[in-house]
């Protein structure tokens, strides 16, 4: 007997990332469109669906149009469209269709989106059926998400094979606060997911603010700044370790954004992809300095989507400097990348040296 699996896609999730908007809640979506943002969920959804091996054992219920239907047409799968939506989709559509799918007997619900989408799904279905969350949002802090679209596909297969389910957190952060450089996250609820723990995104841990952590960041900053070349453009990613580096250089830093320095001077603030590529026209030698954000271990693909595949490719793997305190690194299984470009992700995989103190490095595996 086939498993009835639902699919709901938030078509606007993740669009704010490449234009530096930190989310697409509310009216920000329109601003993202004006800035030329492109949808990212089609590719993520496609990546997930194409990798599901148990397609023959699944009966698919999908949301209409760009909320699901459009992506499954490319696959040789039988599907039933549930509900109807207008030209512009909203959170209410997600909630209504999710509830309807559960009423129609869906046993597993796949959804693609970010924390906001997870919140909507939770509102609609609570713990009634398990979900597989495909990460496509700008800011993904909830541990309910799979680490990548590929991992999401493996979770679907595990469910079909009969694995049990476990609870994972749905978090959300205040987007208004996020845009103002304040990180205000809260636990919103729990969703059930197939119990395949290694594929889950660890819940974002609060940054360690102990004195030793502050000292470690100062040590890292001192070493990184000492090693800086005055003829190279440095793109400083988000996070408090990068803030410490900026402080060492005596330049201001956007906590959750990307700033650029050259010759010890600030040459770009809260940059989006366009801004970064603009700087590449002026500066030939470039380096990216990033730190894994919170408890996720992601150096690319979460919270810093302005580092698009094009930006990363033009900088080159050898010019990526990873920094992080030893305590933070110790708490991670590995570093992770999920840029949205599998070939690039694979190129970034392998070991990278992370600066964890003054002349102190840790060789850590990067996985995708």
């Amino acid at each position, binding site marked *: 007997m086939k498993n009835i699996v639902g699919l709901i896609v938030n078509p606007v999730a993740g669009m704010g990332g490449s234009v530096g908007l930190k989310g697409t809640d509310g009216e920000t979506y329109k601003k993202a469109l004006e800035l030329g943002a492109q949808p990212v969920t089609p590719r993520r959804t496609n990546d997930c669906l194409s990798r599901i091996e148990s397609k023959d054992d699944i009966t698919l219920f999908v949301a209409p149009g760009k909320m699901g239907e459009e992506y499954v047409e490319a696959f040789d799968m039988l599907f039933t469209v549930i509900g109807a939506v207008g030209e512009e989709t909203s959170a209410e559509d997600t909630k209504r269709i999710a509830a309807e799918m559960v009423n129609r007997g869906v046993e597993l619900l796949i959804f693609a989106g970010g924390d906001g989408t997870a919140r909507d799904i939770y509102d609609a279905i609570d713990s009634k059926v398990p979900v597989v969350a495909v990460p496509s949002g700008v800011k993904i802090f909830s541990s309910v998400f799979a680490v990548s679209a590929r991992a999401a596909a493996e979770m679907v297969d595990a469910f079909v094979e009969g694995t049990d389910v476990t609870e994972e957190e749905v978090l959300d952060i205040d987007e208004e606060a996020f845009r103002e450089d304040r990180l205000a996250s809260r636990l919103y609820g729990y969703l059930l997911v197939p119990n395949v723990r290694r594929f889950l995104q660890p819940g974002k841990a609060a940054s360690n603010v102990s004195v030793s952590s502050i000292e470690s960041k100062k040590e890292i900053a001192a070493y990184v700044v000492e090693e800086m070349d005055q003829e190279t453009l440095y793109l400083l990613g988000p996070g408090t370790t990068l803030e410490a580096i900026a402080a060492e250089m005596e330049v201001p830093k956007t906590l959750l954004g990307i700033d650029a320095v050259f010759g010890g001077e600030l040459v770009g603030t809260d940059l989006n992809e366009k801004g970064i590529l603009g700087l590449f026209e002026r500066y030939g030698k470039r380096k990216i300095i990033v730190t894994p954000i919170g408890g996720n271990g992601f150096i690319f693909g979460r919270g810093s989507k302005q580092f698009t595949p094009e930006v990363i490719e033009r900088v080159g793997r050898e010019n990526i400097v990873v920094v992080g305190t030893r305590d933070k690194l110790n708490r991670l299984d590995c570093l992770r990348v999920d840029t949205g470009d599998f070939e690039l992700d694979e190129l970034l995989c392998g070991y990278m040296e992370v600066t964890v103190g003054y002349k102190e490095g*840790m060789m850590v595996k990067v996985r995708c």
Partner: protein
Amino acid sequence: MLKEPIKLNMNEVPYPPPQEVIEAAQKGLAKLNRYADPEDLGRLRGLLAGYSGVLEEHVVLSPGSDILLREVIHTFSKGRKVIIVSPSFFPTVQAAKQFATKLVSLRLSPPEFDLDLDLLMDELKEACLVIVDNPNNPTGKILLHRQAVEAIIESTDTLLVVDEAYYEFSGVTFADMVHDRPNLAVTRTMDKAFSLAGARIGYIIAGEAFGDAFSSFYAFLPQPSLYAAIEALNHPDYVRRNVQRVVEERERVWRILNELAVHVCQSTTNFLLVKTEIPDIVKRLRDIGILVLDLSNQLPSGFVRVSIGTGEENNAFIAGYIKIREAYLNGTQMNVGLRG
């Protein structure tokens, strides 16, 4: 609640040494007004050389192998990059952080915790001091095999120290290679398999290149420890019995935890690395009188190290774990109900 806590947090062997070893320590107590006799120290050195199958000249004694590791790092980190694995024996990490002018940690990633030999070899392009605990503490895994050791010490600019604190349990040693490999050293202890943690007897079997560090290193050992160690080496049968009992118990605990669907790594030591989803498991176990080691400062959340105790102690740990898990799962279900 038990009167005395069950100590499964320090990797001690739970069985006391035999009566004759205790009596020897008591004889040492009678000489507490005197420093150890150099002849007795020489005797212990000779016995350890014989036990390890090496020449006496390679053996240096110390009250604890952590002191020797610290001495090696202090002396040989000047002008050398220090390479350690992470996680590792905590005093090694601390000493490396304190003394190394350039430090590289090679992260052992869960769930396999393997050491990538190619990565290590890539790091050996300059003068290096490499320190690897083998088996690794806290994963219990063998990280180096003979071929790997051969490859690492091929470069004479590299000094390799292998910490074999759990050698008696793993059966893997490179001590026999020291006599013709000047840049290799092995540290060992009588704390574990010899049931002498309270005596603190450590030793290093060092190749010639380490000679400088230890030419002036002369450790007076406490009289009771010295006497106990000498007597222990005269009765090695009890060590074999200790190892056999610990290994049997380790495998039994491993099997039961596996049957309970607890993630537990295979071990070659007297401890197990356990991964649990129960938050605050160390505190919850402590509340019922069972001590295990919290690894949250070295590994992702949920990892704890559990030493192998007596059968009774291990049963208490397993029963306690089951009870805590049931309470946790019931509590979780109650929360779900409340949210719904």
